[in-house]
C-alpha cells in the first residue's frame, strides 16, 4: 500500500520532556488514531510533522518529499486543531474569501456545500457560533481545498456525542475513495474505535506501539483476577498489568489462547482505553 506520510525517528528535547525516536507511517486510504496521556507528545509530534516546530533529528516525508522543501505540499494537507484559529469577528463568508486567496486548490462551491450541510450561517460572526459549529467550520475549511491528508489534533474534544457522530461520518466519507488518509489525535478513544484502522500509542515521548486496531480489538484481552490467580499466569503471557483496589487487570496479547489456558479466569475484550490505562498506570512486563 502506498505510503502517504512517513515519520522516521523524530526527536525533540525540551526541559523536562523528550520526544524520542518517534516513527510510524500512514498508508493511503487509512485512518490512524494517535493516542496517549496528556503531555505524552501527541501535539508535539503533530507540530513537528507540520513543520510548525523544528525537530532535533529525524525525517518527515509526505508523498516522499519533506514539507520544508516545497510549501505547495501544504495544499494537500487539511489541518484541524482543537479550536478555530480565525478571529471571532470574522464570518464564515469572509473566512472563505481569505482561504480562497491562500489555497490554489480552494473550491468555493465545496466550501459553501459544507456550510449548508453543517447548517453554518455564512454571515454570522464566529463568536456567535457554538463550539460544535466552530469545529464544523474548521472541518469545512480543511476539506475545501481538496486535501489528500487530514491531520486532526483533538478535533472532536468538547463536542457532544451527536455532533461527534456527524463529524465522524464526514471523516469516513473522506477516506471512502481509498485515496485519502486521516491522522487523528484524540482523547476520546471510542471515536477512534469507531473509525480508525491503526492505533499509534505514544507514552512519555516514545511510540509504545503502532498496530492495526483490529489486532488490538480481536487479539488483545484483559484477564481480571485476584492476587493468587495472578501468580498462576505465566510471565511470557503478560504484556502489562495494573493493580486495582480489589483486582488486577492483566493485559495479554492473545485473548483466545489466554481463555484456553486460564479457564477459571475472566478474560475480557480490551478497549483502547483499557490498554492505555494499563500501560500508563500499571507495570509493563514486555
Amino acid at each position, binding site marked *: 500500500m502506498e505510503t502517504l506520510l512517513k515519520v522516521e525517528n523524530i526527536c525533540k528535547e525540551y526541559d523536562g520532556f523528550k520526544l524520542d525516536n518517534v516513527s510510524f507511517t500512514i498508508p493511503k486510504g487509512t485512518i490512524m488514531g494517535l493516542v496517549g496521556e496528556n503531555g505524552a507528545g501527541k501535539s508535539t509530534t503533530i507540530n513537528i510533522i*507540520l*513543520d*510548525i*516546530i*523544528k525537530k532535533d533529528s529525524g525525517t518527515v516525508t509526505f508523498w516522499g518529499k519533506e514539507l520544508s522543501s516545497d*510549501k*505547495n505540499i*501544504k*495544499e494537500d*494537507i487539511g*489541518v484541524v*486543531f482543537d*479550536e*478555530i*484559529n*480565525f*478571529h*471571532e*469577528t*470574522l464570518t464564515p463568508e*469572509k473566512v472563505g*474569501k*481569505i*482561504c*480562497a*486567496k*491562500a*489555497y*490554489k486548490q480552494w473550491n468555493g462551491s465545496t466550501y459553501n456545500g459544507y456550510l449548508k450541510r453543517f447548517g453554518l450561517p455564512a454571515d454570522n460572526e464566529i463568536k456567535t457560533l457554538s463550539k460544535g459549529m466552530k469545529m464544523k467550520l474548521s472541518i469545512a475549511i480543511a476539506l475545501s481545498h481538496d486535501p489528500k491528508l487530514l*491531520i486532526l489534533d483533538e478535533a472532536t474534544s468538547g463536542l457532544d456525542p451527536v455532533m461527534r457522530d456527524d463529524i465522524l461520518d464526514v471523516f469516513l466519507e473522506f477516506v471512502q475513495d481509498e485515496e485519502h488518509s486521516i491522522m487523528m489525535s484524540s482523547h476520546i478513544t471510542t471515536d477512534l474505535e469507531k473509525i480508525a484502522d491503526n492505533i499509534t500509542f505514544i507514552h512519555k515521548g516514545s511510540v509504545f506501539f503502532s498496530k492495526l486496531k483490529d489486532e488490538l480489538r480481536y487479539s488483545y484481552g484483559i484477564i481480571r483476577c485476584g492476587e493468587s490467580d495472578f501468580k498462576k499466569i505465566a510471565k511470557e503471557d503478560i504484556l502489562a498489568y495494573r493493580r486495582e483496589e480489589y483486582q488486577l487487570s492483566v493485559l495479554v496479547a492473545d485473548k483466545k489462547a489466554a481463555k484456553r489456558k486460564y479457564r477459571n479466569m475472566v478474560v475480557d475484550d480490551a478497549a483502547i482505553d483499557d490498554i492505555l490505562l494499563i500501560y500508563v498506570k500499571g507495570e509493563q512486563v514486555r
Partner: protein
Amino acid sequence: MKSLILKDLYNIGHNVRSLVISMIFCAGILFFTTGGEGFVYMSTIIFTMMILTTFAFDENCKWNHYAMTMPVSKKDIVVSKYAVMIIFTATGAVVGLLVGAVFAAASKSAEMNTENMLEMLTNAAAAFLIGIVFGSMEIPLVFRFGTEKSRLLMFVSFLVPAALFFGIYKLLVTAGVEFTDDLFLRILCFSPLFAVVWVYVMFKISCAVFERREI
C-alpha cells in the same frame, strides 16, 4: 500572502467604528490647539499603531500556529505585516490630510492657497515617513516579545529612531556642520531613502526573529 493581508484588513474592519469615534474626539481637541497640522501626525500614528491590534487578534486565536499549516512561509507572514502596516500608515496620512484640509477650509485664520496646500502635503508625507519608521521598529518587537510586552516597549520604537537621529545631528554639529535651510531641505529630500533603508533593516531583523521563534 494576499490572504494574510486580507485577513488583517477584515479583522481591523470590525474596529472602524471605534476608530472613527476616537479620531473625531482627537480632531475636536486638535482643532482648537494645533490645527490641521497636528491632526495629520496624530491620525497617521493612530493608524500605524493599529498594526499592534492585528497582532493581538492573531495571538488571541493562535493564528500564526494555524497559518503555518497553510501554503505560506514565516517570511510571508512578516512581509504581510509590513504591507499591512504601510497600508494603515498611508491611510492615516490620507485621512489626516483630508480632515486637515477641511480644518483649514473651516478655519477663518487659514486660507486655502497653494502654499498652505503644499505645506499640508509635506506634513502628510513627513507623517507617513515617521509612521513607517515607527511601525517598522514596532513589528520586530512584537515578534520577539509578544503584543502585551510590546505595548510597554512601544516608547522604544519612538525613542530609538529619535535618539539615533538626534545623536547624528549632535555629532554633525560638534563636527562643525552648519544646519542651514538649504541643508534641511536636502535632508528632507533624502528622508524617504532613510526610511526605506530603515524599513528594510527592520524587516530583515523581523524575519530573523520570527524564523527562530517557535510558534
